[in-house]
């Protein structure tokens, strides 16, 4: 159970940190419809995080909140793309396109996991991320082909986030440790490309050539943005250790 928990923890952290980023948009979106849409996506993602962290924690006698609020930066296992600051709406959409495509292929694969709980979580999540993917596809095309400014911002946003794509498919010791349970990240690149590349083509966007960052989120190596995010996320809970809310 410990090995499965470690795998679930990484997946849960990805979703948790992304949900935290999406939460920053609420009440700040470019139009009311997007306050609703980004809120929905954030809520779904937070839901996935809670299921995964609750499951991971059950192996260690810890709650989802123990894991979310009382771990330090180096103990988080999220990949770096999820930590990246929102940037403008175009950059957030670029990140959402990538991560929604990634989640789509991940959860589709995880439905066949030998671990029943993970398979069930994935089955529910797979349906939800379908909608997230739609949302980011529509906006990607719209922004890329909208005005000159929206195109410039879309290209810049995609270039800013692209260096973090490769890490999504990098080997993950926690996945390797439970081959029947986990989806091997490397196997997801092809189906991911099959989703994302046609969207980029439709949006008349070139695949950026910026080099990939070294990554290492699954080993606890995080970009400098995570520390600030955690300072804010954990501040209240840590001011009241042991409190129930």
């Amino acid at each position, binding site marked *: 159970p410990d090995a499965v928990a470690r795998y679930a923890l990484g997946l849960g952290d990805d979703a948790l940190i992304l949900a935290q980023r999406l939460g920053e948009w609420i009440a700040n979106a470019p139009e009311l419809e997007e306050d609703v849409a980004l809120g929905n996506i954030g809520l779904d993602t937070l839901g996935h995080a809670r299921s995964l962290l609750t499951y991971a924690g059950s192996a260690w006698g810890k709650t989802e909140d123990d894991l979310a609020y009382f771990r330090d930066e180096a103990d988080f296992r999220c990949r770096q793309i999820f930590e990246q600051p929102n940037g403008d709406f175009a950059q957030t959409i670029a990140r959402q396109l990538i991560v929604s495509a990634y989640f789509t292929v991940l959860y589709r694969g995880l439905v066949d996991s030998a671990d029943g709980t993970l398979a069930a979580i994935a089955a529910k999540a797979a349906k939800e991320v379908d909608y997230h993917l739609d949302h980011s596809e529509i906006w990607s095309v719209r*922004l890329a082909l909208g005005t000159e400014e929206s195109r410039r911002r879309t290209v810049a946003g995609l270039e800013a986030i692209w260096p973090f794509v490769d890490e999504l498919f990098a080997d993950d010791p926690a996945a390797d440790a439970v081959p029947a349970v986990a989806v091997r990240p490397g196997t997801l690149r092809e189906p991911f490309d099959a989703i994302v590349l046609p969207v980029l083509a439709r949006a008349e966007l070139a695949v950026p050539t910026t080099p990939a960052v070294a990554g290492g989120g699954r080993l606890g190596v995080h970009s400098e943005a995570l520390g600030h995010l955690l300072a*804010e996320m954990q501040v209240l809970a840590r001011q009241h250790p042991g409190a129930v*809310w």
Partner: protein
Amino acid sequence: ASKLAAFDALIAENQRIEPSDWMPEAYRKTLVRQMSQHAHSEIIGMQPEGNWITRAPSLKRKAILMAKVQDEAGHGLYLYSATETLGITRDEMLDQLHTGKAKYSSIFNYLAPSWADMGSIGWLVDGAAIANQVPLCRASYGPYGRAMVRICKEESFHQRQGFEILLALMNGTEAQQRMAQESVDRWYAPALMMFGPPDAESPNSQQSMAWKIKRFSNDDLRQRFVDMIVPQAEFLGVTLPDPDLRWNEDRGHYDFGELDWDEFYAVLRGSGQANALRLAKRRAAHDEGAWVREAARAYAERAASSERLAS
């Protein structure tokens, strides 16, 4: 004159006025003012809570808070749509909000510096809003009444969640209890003022009541609200900060102290803790989103014209 008579008859029979019906210009104007102000309040009301989403102290609370703020955005959407049936666009209404021409509920010009405020806002502010709004479900203008039905259902959910936040704090550590009490101390009087000035000083109310847009007087609603929250406060174990608050056997109601209406008017005029903040944030979100809305418009136009070409 026969149009006016028909309108008056519908009102007298408690029938609904629909967008295609004739209505007096003053009725239309009053509704636009009230409904758009209501919509703006939902939008501005997202801010004090939105500000705590990133710091919510448990994942469950974070999820509930996100859902709540999202509901408010949704309420804003219905209400803008309902108001648009009166011949004004959302852009025009937003413009009035951003230039300060239109108001929003003055309650959001108070600050929410504490997590416990998420509880007080739910329990007291949403509670007062519901007391105001439940009668509006029967408002004479159809689209307004129907929007309110949906909104009230969600609001009472929010009120219970706020109550639950305070309950958890009052069942918690001493520091949590202090946090809850300090917050209730700040929100009690402003919540009571949400029903508007005393009836004697509320000149517009008469006409609105005649038109069945408004169905109870400010003071009646305020009394009803106080009667409701006193036992709830006792259950929570918080003290309501009003030394004059006591049960009046004769009236069958709680008596309560004078409210500081000078403060109310000062906040209304713009000198609250958060007036500047709320409007600045709203404008910033709108301005920063301008290029996105423009891109969507340009894309939609291009798509429409290429469809025309294709057909």
